[in-house]
């Protein structure tokens, strides 16, 4: 799906994809889960339809973030 947006003008130049770990332009990215610091995490939009990649990579990301959160709580 393609979308043309003229606003806003405050877009950062890129975000990092949690799947391929590469920088990606906002117009080619998708928001996913939150990371250990409750910040929004992203992936390239084209990974969404590759469920053999999309599902396990996000699932692994989430469990890793959950562990980081638990460790931070323990040490606090």
């Amino acid at each position: 799906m393609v979308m043309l947006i003229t606003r806003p003008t405050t877009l950062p130049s890129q975000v990092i994809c949690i799947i391929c770990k590469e920088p990606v332009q906002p117009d080619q990215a998708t928001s996913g889960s939150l990371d250990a610091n409750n910040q929004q995490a992203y992936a390239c939009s084209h990974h969404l339809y590759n469920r053999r990649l999309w599902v396990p990579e996000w699932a692994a990301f989430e469990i890793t973030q959950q562990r980081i959160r638990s460790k931070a709580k323990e040490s606090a």
Partner: protein
Amino acid sequence: MILHLDNGRWYIDVRGPGSSDQHSLDLSLHLPRRLTAGHVVIVAENPRVFLSVIRKRWMRLLYDVEIQRSSTLDPLRRESLQHEVERMRTCTFSAKAPPDAPVGTQIFVVKPDWLTDLPEHMTLYIATSLTTQQIVQAMKRLRRGGLIVIYGNWTADYEILLHQTYQ
């Protein structure tokens, strides 16, 4: 496409135009990623029909995840897919808004005119066109740091989102 709003109150994803089939597929693949964040609200023209499509896709995806889990040997991957399966299995949907939805509902599929009764939520999927007034209503219960996903064309009615996000 994301309208990345790190300095704003919410994040906005615009998925753009497409068939309702494409939208429901996109949404069912994306939805599991938002389950741990908090309640999810989906605004659709016909909640019962939309929910039935999402449920079917959900069951198919769950089956696929179970197969992936049983065929992986990597311990982290296996454990995380097990979590995914459990989360998907126990997830609760309703085509009603509170107070009519069952207690414990995680995903609410609602009509545009039910937006006054929304629970506090972290993700808002807009799968139908809304007026500015309806958007303002829906966002009243969207928590800070939440995500709005818009299916369809960006119209002038959505400009309020950008305005409110940076307020």
